[in-house]
């Protein structure tokens, strides 16, 4: 008895241990993988050294409501970082679009530096491109709407987004176009669908009838034994053969006929277009105006603060001040620089702008020709919520950001900064 009980208990223990270890394994997978994917979950060192979006404007305000069929326009600039991560492809093949939950908006027009982006294109690193994306509301709901650029091998890299509520009825959505051959398509989403269903139904009917022709007979046991007996005359009758021959002819004739009438109805077609759009490399108007060198950078964990020591040389003719530090769509603005404060539009998503001012150790302007070493401190909970702090888990502890300088006239000069970043774990 005792042995039985103890062996039962042992078995239970073994089972519990097994379940525990499986759960533990799954848990390890969860924690490991959650930090390794997607928009917020893309590794910070990749996000900070790929695309920097700025001057983003939406034709509607954050959290506003629009109707089905209303248009939304997103414009702004996107900077392709020159220290592009080695581990992903250079942006020689990219596609401009929108990060929305799928087709809840229809993409009406997209332009990169004025060039239509219906095709993919390639860009040069270290350059800034203007983009424009026009969307049309299709499915009601509260949606997060971002501009996005897909980079071959890296996937979608998402710009800052706002919330838009689409009201109305999805059935009211229309998107009409006229083809070059004069066909008027009332609604692109349902165009030529009845024809698709018709042909599917025709072939499915033929198939089902043919299957029923066989299924009506005793199938499995009898036919298995008849095969063994070699009674093929009973298995496949003359009648079957005649019908099969007729069907072969019928199918071929139907295919030929269907293609002939299709040719008559659509005499002019073009294949899918697979070319690449060409965008001229824009001139980097800020080239050489300011020299920025990262001396050291630290991430102070308990305080959610990034501190950068940088050597900055002003090569322009007028004094400049550091107005903004931006990394991975989070903006840290120096509140004591009015021109920088003006750059933050009303309606820009709050969660992407740090509450506290960017702290700069020396707020006096950097004079023409002068070199200064500045301590820059960017503090915000966004490091955590946008998961940038997870850079401590990355195989490459480096950061990248843009620095916005302003001169007395309010003109802006943008320069990249990048380097190693070192964590501080304790107070």
């Amino acid at each position, binding site marked *: 008895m005792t042995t039985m009980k103890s062996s039962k208990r042992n078995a239970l223990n073994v089972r519990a241990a097994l379940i525990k270890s499986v759960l533990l394994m799954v848990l390890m997978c969860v924690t490991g993988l959650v930090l390794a994917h997607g928009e917020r979950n893309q590794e910070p060192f990749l996000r900070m050294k790929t695309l920097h979006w700025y001057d983003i404007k939406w034709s509607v305000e954050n959290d506003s409501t629009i109707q089905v069929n209303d248009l939304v326009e997103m414009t702004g600039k996107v900077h392709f970082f020159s220290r592009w991560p080695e581990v992903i492809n250079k942006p020689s093949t990219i*596609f401009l*679009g*929108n990060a*929305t939950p*799928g*087709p*809840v908006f*229809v*993409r009406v027009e997209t*332009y990169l530096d004025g060039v239509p982006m*219906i095709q*993919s294109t390639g860009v040069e690193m270290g350059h800034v491109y203007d983009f424009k994306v026009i969307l049309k509301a299709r499915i009601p709901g509260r949606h997060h709407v971002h501009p996005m650029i*897909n980079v*071959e091998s890296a*996937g*979608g890299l998402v710009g800052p987004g706002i919330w838009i509520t689409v009201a109305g009825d999805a059935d009211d959505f229309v*998107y009409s176009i*006229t*083809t*070059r*051959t004069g*066909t008027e398509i009332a609604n692109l*989403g349902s*165009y*030529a669908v009845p024809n*698709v269903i018709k042909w*599917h139904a025709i*072939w*499915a009917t033929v*198939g*089902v009838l043919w299957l029923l022709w*066989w*299924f009506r007979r*005793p*199938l*499995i*046991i*009898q*036919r298995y*034994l008849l*095969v*063994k*007996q*070699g009674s*093929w005359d009973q298995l496949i009758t003359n009648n079957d*053969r005649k019908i*099969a*021959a007729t069907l*072969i002819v019928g*199918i071929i004739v139907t*295919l030929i006929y269907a293609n002939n009438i299709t*040719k008559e*109805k659509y005499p002019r*077609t*073009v*294949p*899918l*277009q*697979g*070319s690449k759009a060409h965008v001229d490399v824009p001139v980097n108007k800020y080239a050489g105006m300011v020299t920025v060198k990262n001396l050291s950078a630290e991430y102070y964990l308990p305080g959610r603060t990034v501190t950068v020591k940088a050597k900055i040389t002003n090569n322009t003719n007028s004094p400049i001040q550091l107005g903004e530090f931006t990394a991975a769509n989070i903006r840290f603005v120096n509140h004591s620089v009015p021109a920088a404060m003006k750059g933050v539009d009303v309606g820009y998503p709050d969660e992407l702008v740090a509450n506290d001012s960017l702290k700069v150790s020396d707020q006096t302007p950097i004079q023409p020709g002068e070199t200064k070493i500045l301590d820059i401190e960017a503090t915000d909970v966004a490091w955590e919520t946008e998961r940038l702090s997870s850079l401590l888990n990355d195989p490459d502890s480096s950061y990248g950001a843009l620095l916005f300088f302003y001169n007395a006239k309010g003109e802006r000069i943008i320069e990249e900064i990048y380097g190693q970043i070192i964590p501080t774990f304790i107070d």
Partner: protein
Amino acid sequence: MKLTTNEATLLSAVTTPNSEAARIARGLDMFVVAILFFAIIAAFHIHIMLTVGDWDFWVDWKDRMYWVTATPMLLIFIPAALSYPFMMRFGLPIAGTLCAFCLVLGEWISRIVGFHLWTYFPYSMIWPAIVLPGLMLMDLVLLLSRNLFITSIFGGSAVAFAFAPANWPILAPYHEPVVHMGQLVNVADMIGYSFTRTATPEYLRFIERGTLRTFGGESTLISTGFSGFVCMILFFVWWKIGEWLTNLGTIPNVMKKHVGLGDDDDEK
């Protein structure tokens, strides 16, 4: 071939009309049909979606080169493998037709319930290809010839040869030219551009992008010809794989003593 006594008894029993045996056999038929129906949808569909799925999902992937070349090749695997047991063990030349029907049914359910009702993709973008004529021709050739080689050559290639003609009547309207933002595209391109796929951008499409060598736009014909050739070989290979999987044997059961079977029960 002569049947064993048991087999002869059983054949006589199940062929007696309205007998208990015939009723039991018919019941088994129904179960087997149901099993095959669901299992084929699942197996054939997962095979197709993960090998040539993107071409099948999206109208702006349905090109003259990869779609026409690859789809028939991948379509033939499972129907060819099942043709062996269906035909050689049960005298049923319907594996291709059954597979085609099951696949397209599974696809339509997924496109309606998943692609359209869940994630709002429009039907013009997500219709599946027609695959039945080719696979049915394959069956019919097998029925008439009852010969592996003839079916490989004529039946296998029929899957490829019928593919583009079966689909052009539904695809052609989507290949009408459109000018959008001053760019020439076709309606399918336009649909793909308009209805956002966040993770499958334009450049990810495996489509014909030109080679200087497609001989005046005969891409579809060239693709079909190549596909037909590969299909001939694949039919043969997969028929053999089907044969192997049908005739799998057994391995010893080390636990059989726990269910009251001894070593001498092996030969029963």
